[in-house]
């Protein structure tokens, strides 16, 4: 009797008032609790298709780098988020599981220590944009979870924005040269450039070096042949900069 009381007391001390914690605790090391939820049909990042079903509560194996990514998924609004009209919402279990699965595929180089949080919001000011980045924060909107969207592709793009914001001066300069960006003016609200007639894998790349960089990293990881064909100099820059292990599913724990 005394023993049982001690166990309950220790669970209460460890978990506070969080009732779910007791079950989470029982999942053991390397696993996490997934509560019962309805999961829509989807295709996982490795191409495996899953039918729509009700998933019963269970303990799931932690995806790669779960301990790094899981605390980043927050319910709330990033501090100082500039887009005032965008409303936040809570992560559903289904979205959380899918996002953690996609994040587990990211190469370690994109695990930035300066990334504070990944939040959920309903609708982008630029609907149907699926995601946005600020300095240290990422937001995923409802459209990121639509059937035809690849979370892996969306997240590699947003994590590339975070990587860009922390490039060293030398790396920024060498990328600018490799990608043929010729500055003209930074004096207005929008920088003026010329890009020496080069091609872009995604048309909004022409808007800024940063958007171009994020698109190129996204394509390098998800559709490398297209990037190599359209902008071989940029493909080579990414290969040289990140090395052989820069690919999806490369795993490993490394935080920049």
């Amino acid at each position, binding site marked *: 009797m005394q023993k049982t009381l001690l166990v309950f007391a220790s669970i209460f001390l460890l978990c506070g008032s969080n009732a779910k914690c007791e079950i989470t605790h029982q999942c053991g090391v390397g696993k996490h609790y997934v509560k019962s939820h309805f999961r829509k049909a989807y295709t996982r990042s490795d191409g495996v298709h899953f039918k729509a079903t009700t998933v019963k509560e269970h303990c799931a194996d932690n995806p790669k780098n779960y301990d790094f990514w899981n605390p980043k998924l927050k319910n709330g609004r990033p501090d100082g988020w500039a887009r005032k009209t965008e409303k936040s919402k809570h992560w559903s279990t289904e979205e959380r599981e899918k996002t953690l699965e996609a994040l587990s595929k990211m190469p370690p180089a994109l695990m930035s220590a300066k990334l504070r949080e990944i939040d959920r919001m309903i609708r982008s000011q*630029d609907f149907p944009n699926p995601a946005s980045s600020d300095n240290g924060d990422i937001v995923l909107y409802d459209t990121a979870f639509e059937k035809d969207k690849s979370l892996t592709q969306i997240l590699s793009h947003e994590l590339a924005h975070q990587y860009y914001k922390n490039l060293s001066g030398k790396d920024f300069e060498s990328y600018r040269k490799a990608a043929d960006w010729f500055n*003209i003016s930074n004096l207005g609200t929008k920088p*003026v450039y010329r890009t020496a007639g080069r091609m872009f894998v995604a048309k909004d790349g022409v808007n800024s070096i*940063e958007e171009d960089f994020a698109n190129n990293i996204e394509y390098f990881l998800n559709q490398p042949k297209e990037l190599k064909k359209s902008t071989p100099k940029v493909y080579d820059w990414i290969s040289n900069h990140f090395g052989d292990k820069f690919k999806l599913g490369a795993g490993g724990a490394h935080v920049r």
Partner: protein
Amino acid sequence: MFAKNIPFLTLLIMLCPSCSSLSAKNHVSSYPLSLVETIKPGTTTKEEVIATLKKPDQIIPLTGKELVHGNEAWLYLNDEKDSTRASIIFDKKSIVSEVNWFPESQDEESDLQRLLSHYSPAKFVKSTIPWTTQHSSPSEHVYSNETLGIKIVSMPNNDFVESIGFEKPKSH
């Protein structure tokens, strides 16, 4: 004759790598800031720009929304011709409207703190560039002094200076 010169040529080749690295170390890029900032928006003419910087590598006509900057941009490229070193923008009367200078990492002005101390005791107001693209807020920080007509754009997390721009100072 040729055989006689072989030891000399060998010595020259042996010394050459150190010569080239020495010259690279002491290399001063074309169009330093001290030269470019002698061009004054609102007064300097095309002829005076040519007298100071010589002819540009590229002449770019500005169009659409770019016309707020001026009508024509003259680009001066770095030695490798793979990056803009300076751009001089002219208004329709062929008077300079803007001067932009883009440091490279070996320039000491690429460090924000050094650059700000270069203009000391002038005070700069810090701001960020408004969010203009769909996916991401611009990373850069902006340091402006309207009295001097100077705007410095730097990266947020390492103080690397992307550009220094000069326009006609605003009269108060």
